């Protein structure tokens, strides 16, 4: 039997074995007060508010108690209410809670419970402990005065993000949340994912970018998909009178635990660049503002009269936007490319050359957490794909071995078991490992033999052997290739190694929307007559700049003013991530919906319509 039957407040309910009483109750609409419990985190039974009466005698926390046949649970006895009131008052009066000053007033779980328990007077005087406020971080303020020591942030940082930046320090009333070994948050190992503030029940950790913008309960909330990278994280975006108040992770029940990264949670709100409202034309050293239709005409005029046209789009657009842009550009005979697509083309080419089958590729990145061994090329994914990085960190916390190979510093330095820094090209070491593996155990044992293969490389033979040994020992190893590896030789060696070792591969590229894999793209003219760049609101624009510099005439379509738009001859308004709608494809190949969160504030309502017009004007 997998279900058990028991009784809660006189109501017979049944639940799956292994559930906690709290979960079972919530499933049946019985809410039990709680502060430390959070669905994305492990239960620690610290706050004691969820205590229930069991079989008329014991008082036990319902978040720790497992359901069992015949249990008689009371959730609302007078005793329990009295205890809860007392605990709430102890918490409220012992730290410095001043609701009217607090950013979380209205969104505070402690406050809600105080109201629910009708606490309108206090027995104990305030204690006035003097706690520091840490505002050293770019986005996060940590105010210990409002901290109730529930430890959610610590668990989130450990269990969900795998970063272990926050921990509990001190004992008794001196117990507090500390950062690393007691450094300010801004100087810590924090990855700015903001998971801590998402789970904080009070106003102890909050976002500088969202503070005092509005009470979330009074906001409209839309669930959409983040376009910043290919992880396809679900986001809940809170808006009030058309302005974004806060962005939270939506996937609380999925493996990601609802975490977002700096790019998903903070960057979209931090972006202060001036919106482009009109078309700007730079001609003969003069800058003119044009209407959108005048801009359209100017663009088509340039496209029509030119032969060598390079069209280049950001990878962080919706599938529909990409299609419309590609269609319009093709109509004008342009060569078309998208950020990240080049890497994908190389990959396909290499795969075909060495007969690499699709079975070698991981179809679900959460598999990372099951691997025995992870071999990571290019650790910059720590910043470019933070959610994936969190899976790697979580895996290492559970005993997975991590080997990193990078041209620069190992960004996973405090998680990796073996890290090798090798000057570019990164391919050399893979080739070497391949060679050593191919030549069998004999050469592994023979240090001098390995040395001779190593040649001029500044890598110790022992390190190579350790990698080989780790790969040999593991039954399930995954090779992750970061988006900075873009040469065909490197890819070939890495893929060969995967084939040789039977490893699985996760290959990351720079595009947020993996629709690029379905699109037909080709390299663009390096020195075109006209370069048409659809930048959207992407920030990383180095290769786009390069293209503009070499073009005779450049058109940039961008949401905000940037270095790129300053360089362009013709600037056309574009949309931000939250003004787009359509679909996007994540790294696992799943199609997700992108909702329009805010009405377009720039000079353009729909890019699709614009490109349809442009396509007609040839």
């Amino acid at each position: 039997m997998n279900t058990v039957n028991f009784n809660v407040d006189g109501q017979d309910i049944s639940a799956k074995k292994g559930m906690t009483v709290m979960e079972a109750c919530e499933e049946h609409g019985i809410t039990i007060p709680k502060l430390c419990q959070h669905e994305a985190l492990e239960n620690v039974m610290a706050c004691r508010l969820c205590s229930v009466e069991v079989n008329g005698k014991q008082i036990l926390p319902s978040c720790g108690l497992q359901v069992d046949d015949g249990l008689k649970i009371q959730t609302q006895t007078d005793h329990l209410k009295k205890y809860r009131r007392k605990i709430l008052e102890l918490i409220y009066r012992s730290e410095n809670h001043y609701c009217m000053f607090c950013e979380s007033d209205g969104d505070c779980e402690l406050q809600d419970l105080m109201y629910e328990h009708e606490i309108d007077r206090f027995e104990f005087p305030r204690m006035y402990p003097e706690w520091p406020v840490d505002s050293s971080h770019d986005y996060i303020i940590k105010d210990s005065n409002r901290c109730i020591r529930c430890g959610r942030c610590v668990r989130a940082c450990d269990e969900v993000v795998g970063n272990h930046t926050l921990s509990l320090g001190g004992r008794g009333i001196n117990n507090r949340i500390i950062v690393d070994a007691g450094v300010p948050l801004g100087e810590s190992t924090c990855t700015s994912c903001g998971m801590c503030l998402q789970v904080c029940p009070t106003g102890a950790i909050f976002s500088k970018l969202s503070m005092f913008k509005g009470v979330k309960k009074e906001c409209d909330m839309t669930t959409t998909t983040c376009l910043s990278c290919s992880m396809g994280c679900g986001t809940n975006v809170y808006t009030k009178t058309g302005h974004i108040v806060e962005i939270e992770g939506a996937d609380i029940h999925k493996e990601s635990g609802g975490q977002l990264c700096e790019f998903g949670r903070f960057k979209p709100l931090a972006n202060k660049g001036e919106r482009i409202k009109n078309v700007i034309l730079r001609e003969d050293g003069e800058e003119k503002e044009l209407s959108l239709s005048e801009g359209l005409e100017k663009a088509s005029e340039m496209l029509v009269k030119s032969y060598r046209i390079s069209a280049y789009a950001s990878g962080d657009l919706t599938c529909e936007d990409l299609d419309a842009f590609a269609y319009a550009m093709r109509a004008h005979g342009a060569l078309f490319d998208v950020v990240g697509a080049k890497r994908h083309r190389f990959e396909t080419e290499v795969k075909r050359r060495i007969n690499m089958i699709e079975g070698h590729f991981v179809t679900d990145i959460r598999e990372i957490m099951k691997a025995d061994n992870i071999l990571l090329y290019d650790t910059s994914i720590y910043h470019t794909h933070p959610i994936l990085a969190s899976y790697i960190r979580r895996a290492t916390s559970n005993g997975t071995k991590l080997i990193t190979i990078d041209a620069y510093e190992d960004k996973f330095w405090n998680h990796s078991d073996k890290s090798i820094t090798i000057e570019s090209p990164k391919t050399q070491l893979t080739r070497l490992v391949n060679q050593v593996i191919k030549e069998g155990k004999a050469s592994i044992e023979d240090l001098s033999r390995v040395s001779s293969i190593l040649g001029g490389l500044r890598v110790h033979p022992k390190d190579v052997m350790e990698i080989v040994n780790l790969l040999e020992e593991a039954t399930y190893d995954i090779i992750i290739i970061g988006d900075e590896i873009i040469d065909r030789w490197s890819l070939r060696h890495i893929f060969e190694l995967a084939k040789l070792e039977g490893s699985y591969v996760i290959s990351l590229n720079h595009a947020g929307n993996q629709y690029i894999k379905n699109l037909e793209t080709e390299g663009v003219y390096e020195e075109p007559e006209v370069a048409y760049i659809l930048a959207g609101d992407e920030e990383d624009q180095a290769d786009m700049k390069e293209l503009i510099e070499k073009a005779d005439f450049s058109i940039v379509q961008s949401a905000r003013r940037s270095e790129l738009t300053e360089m362009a001859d013709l600037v056309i308004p574009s949309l931000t991530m939250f003004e787009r709608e359509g679909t996007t494809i994540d790294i696992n190949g799943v199609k997700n919906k992108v909702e329009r969160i805010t009405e377009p504030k720039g000079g353009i309502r729909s890019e699709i319509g614009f490109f349809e017009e442009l396509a007609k004007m040839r």
Partner: protein
Amino acid sequence: MVRKEILICSGTGCLSAGSEEIEERLMDELWKHELEDKYPLTRAIKRTGCMGPCNLGPMIIIRPEDTFYGNLKPADVERIVEEHLLKGRVVYDLLIEDIDGRRVEEFEKLDFIRGQKKVVMRDSGDIDPSSLEDYLKVDGYMAARKAIMDMERNEIVKEIKDSGLRGRGGAGFPTGLKWELAAKEISDQKYIVCNGDEGDPGAFMDRSVLEGDPHSIIEGMMIAGYAVGADQGYIYVRAEYPLAIRNLQKAIRDAESEGYLGENLFNQGFDFNVELRVGAGAFVCGEETALLSSIEGKQGRPKYRPPYPVQSGLWGKPTVINNVETFGNIAMIIKYGSEWFRDIGTEGSPGTKVFAVAGDVENTGLIEVAMGTTIREMINIAGGVADGKRFKAVQIGGPAGGVIPEQYLDTPIDYDSLKEAGTIMGSGGFIVLDEDTCMVDVAKFFLDFTQDESCGKCPPCRLGTKRMLDILDKITKGNGEAKDLDKLQDLAETIQATSFCGLGQASPNPVLSTLKFFRDEYETHVHDKKCPTGTCKALVEAYTINEETCVTCGRCIEVCPVDAISSGENTYVIDPEKCISCSECAKICPVDAISEGDEK
């Protein structure tokens, strides 16, 4: 000629009382009298663990005649050597006067010793704890040998179960049952953990056993390991016990090199290793799940049970965790059988219990008695209430326990009777309080301790104990209000019902039990703003000198710590502004001319 042996107590108590200096003098004297052949140092002078009567330190026992000299000063050593060792005459005036004033020659005949029944403390004070050889001489590791070579695993578990041994850490869980549960668990790895994180204020039973007889604990753990199928043991000791750590390290090393620890013990294919883990001295680490977290290198915070450690303990593996004293009993039970053990103590609580007797008694120290001994008998063994004062109460069970007033003096000491009387056995704290003790102050003392030691995980304990302490503080400062006593009671109830672990749940006990038995004292503090015993300084008025009685001897001026007393015309005067009511002057006054307040 019978070789003489001089045993010198080198427990932490005696070391701080100066036993090392006595030892040095002894060696000097032996050298001076050219006795080095007769008394080779390594053989004749033996540093032992705690002998028990700590307030008699430094102390020595001369064997074979068992003559006991206590409270020694370095100058006494010369006479002992010249008279006792050279001439064979007992130095009568250096013998200890017992309760009835008689000087007692033999250690075993001291009242303090005669009333005891030593099982766990059997070797402490008798052997050199740093010597495996000494331990082997008292049949050390024979019980382990018997268990591993001649007994089946389930036989051992049965023997311990039959003995009725209950955990000596305080809660009294049947040890045999715990072992049985662990033995039933199927796992590739099991652990034995010895809880030596003794933290109750004034309690030092575990420390003394670890210091005085470390091998007995290792042997107990080894037997447990064999019985439940564990090959790794950990002893968790707090860093504040450097001597225990040193002796344990030596013991583990010796046992390893002599084959009493390691692989294939007694050629029976059983492996057992012991490692020492040193804790930073957080009280909460005495709680088993917090202790295990600490061993794992995590913050010492309790975890939710179930799963219990026997199912999922250290690193998620089945773990038997027992107190030092519990392990101290194991070898004896295996050696003499459960029948023998059951004959000691009571039906429900067989065996003995070691208490650290402190407070207002004549003789403080470690006393091991058979369970069922009454509290009155215990106090008598300790020589009665000190200075002929009246008995007020005894605090048993440390910060988690409570006070027992006079009317319960005949309560037998066992788990169940103490529970009925409103306290707990605890780990063995036993503090006798005389009539001069303020019960509010006692409650405050213990609460201050638990409040400080709370780990901070749950709000009832972290914040509730702080609030209770604040209220007690307010009361002892004379700012108490009528509703404060109800507030205390209310808070105590919440803390007891909702705290995470035993530390929190038991933390209000000292307050509740003093409130129960001595409520009038609280009320006097609150309503009359007076402390009947004069302990709470804020409630004591300034002292005054009766000029008619005063003989101007000047002693009061000397003892006054704040120079509040000056000479007047015919008498001395106390400046009420400066007086801190410490009562030192009243105590020293030979004619009782000084009293509290303005009465003449």
